């Protein structure tokens, strides 16, 4: 038996989200709320955009509330009219992405009504949505989470986070394993992973930071990156993705969750995050910072690579 994780607070969280959503919609404080609703498969949830106070009762929060809904706030989602204040249900990891987007001048705090969720963790993408949350079925990102209680939100349900079992950080373990390999072995590992990529771009499409009007990888005048799912184009895509998110990625791990080929994309993100911490003492957090580590220069920056 693997250690169960207590998610009993989620029913109180659900009730509180519904009451608050109803209140702010009825009072006209927001025009819409992005949250989670139940869907057909047992235990599953899906994103929902609620505009009517009467529909607030559809909002829920469960261990299957996996999506980072910040995606729906960005200009990548043209289908969603961004009129007035928008309410959004956020976990701590999702909030870090919103904070990052504010730093990149993509979102304004005043346009948002943040409903923060005290979070005991969500399910890994590899298990059925009806599975109980345990130390084995929890998403890898949650084993390393430092953001279970989002701060500076407009509303946070008043519930007590249960004490969590001590979980081994799954990425830290895997990064240590890869770092111990020789470069050739490491390359063999990633080559095997990238070979599975089918260029469905689900990883890009769910990333809140992939809001470019036209991705470099979609350009064909000139063609910057081979578009076909073959070694050249796949490798290029994965390098472009990892590099363009370095110092921006907030660690929500959406890319990895959605990859239909189970490519451990967040492992690259975590490795980049580790380097940025070492080189620039930078970490994604709850504080808006409009000077990203790779978009600024100071004379204290690491120069050791200049030989």
């Amino acid at each position, binding site marked *: 038996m693997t250690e169960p994780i207590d998610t009993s607070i989620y029913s109180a969280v659900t009730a509180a989200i519904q009451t608050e959503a109803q209140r702010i919609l009825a009072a006209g404080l927001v025009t819409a709320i992005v949250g989670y609703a139940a*869907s057909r498969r047992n235990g599953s949830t*899906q994103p929902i955009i609620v505009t009517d106070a009467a529909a607030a009762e559809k909002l829920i929060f469960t261990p299957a509330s996996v999506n980072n809904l910040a995606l729906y706030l960005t200009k990548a989602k043209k*289908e969603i009219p961004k009129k007035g204040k928008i309410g959004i249900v956020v976990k701590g990891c999702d909030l870090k992405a919103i904070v990052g987007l504010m730093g990149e001048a993509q979102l304004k705090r005043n346009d948002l009504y943040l409903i923060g969720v005290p979070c005991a963790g969500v399910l890994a993408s590899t298990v059925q949505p009806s599975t109980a949350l345990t130390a084995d079925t929890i998403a890898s990102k949650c084993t390393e989470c430092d953001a279970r209680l989002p701060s500076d939100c407009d509303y946070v349900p008043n519930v007590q986070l249960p004490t969590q079992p001590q979980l081994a950080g799954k990425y830290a373990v895997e990064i240590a394993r890869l770092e111990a390999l020789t470069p050739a072995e490491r390359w063999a590992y990633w080559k095997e992973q990238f070979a599975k990529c089918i260029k*469905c*771009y*689900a990883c890009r499409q769910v990333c809140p930071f992939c809001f470019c009007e036209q991705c470099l990888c979609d350009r064909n005048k000139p063609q910057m990156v*081979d*578009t*076909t799912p073959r070694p050249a184009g796949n490798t290029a895509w994965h390098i472009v993705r990892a590099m363009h998110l370095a110092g921006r990625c907030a660690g929500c791990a959406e890319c990895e969750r959605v990859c239909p*080929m189970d490519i451990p994309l967040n492992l690259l993100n975590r490795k980049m995050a580790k380097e940025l911490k070492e080189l620039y003492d930078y970490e994604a957090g709850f504080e808006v910072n409009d000077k990203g580590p790779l978009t600024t220069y100071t004379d204290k920056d690491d120069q050791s690579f200049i030989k």
Partner: protein
Amino acid sequence: MQKYISQQNLTTLLDTLIKQGTRVVAPHMNAGVPLYEPIQSAADMATGQLPRRSAKEAFFPVCEDIMSYEKEGQRISLKDIDPARFPETVLVGVRPCDAAAIPVLDEVFSWDYKDEFFLERRKKTTIIGLACTAADDACFCTAVGLFPGETKGSDLFLTPLEDGGYACESYSDKGETLINGNKELFAEPTKTKALSLAEPQTEKIDLKKVKSWLDEHFEDPLWDGIATRCVGCGACAFVCPACHCFDIVDEGTEKAGKRRKSWDACGFWKFTHHASGHNPRDLQPKRYRNRIMHKFKYYDDKFGQTLCTGCGRCVRVCPVGIDIASIVEEISKK
């Protein structure tokens, strides 16, 4: 023709075929993901999980070269791919929802333009279907008129028995040929009980009603309701056994390169993006509408078949939980 084949003899059959130089494609674990891929030994076959991508790639690969070019000074030489070089193949362990999609694909690849890349591989492939004994709650073959013992598309069909062997029935000349060529491995049918088949938990959907609603509702608020949340990726189309859109690009340098065909998806913003910059499907709801229309109306209009076998793959992979089964069911109740 009805026969029995033991687990041991199935292994021998596949190993013999491989030794004889036949390409054997079967469900197999690749870096943690089950995929239909060529195997080097029958022991590599792993039928326990539904492969993440469908069996269509045995005929319609994720990406393939269709031509190459070379330029030297003023001289340009073009070289065709010779489909005659495609190997004889046995595709084994195919789920009923995957096998049933293959005759559906035959229609489109042999209509109007004959796609020799697809058709030549198709001609050279014998398909051995395998009945399903387990389903999850994304499976809905029974809702679209198929079932876990469906034999459509299979040349030979295996039903697992309690003794670990299989009841084996042939449905085509290719199936008979495979049995006749390996007679010693097949025995007469036994009385051993079959394992119970999977039971997907979905009710039959009235596809005629779905189509007649779609006939009248190209414009409808339903599309916005569902698809504002669609993120526009290729996941649903790429894992689908019936989706068949592809893109053609030239890749290489000024001096030499290849023309390649690779999977495309109607979810992408670039899909039907015209050279003028105009896109008739400019927003995601219009693209998602195309997905439903193509599967449950356009394909039916043209070929009298539905472009969905209920494998549930798109439901499992959709990043935002868009569930084609519940959408089609909702339409059928309108």
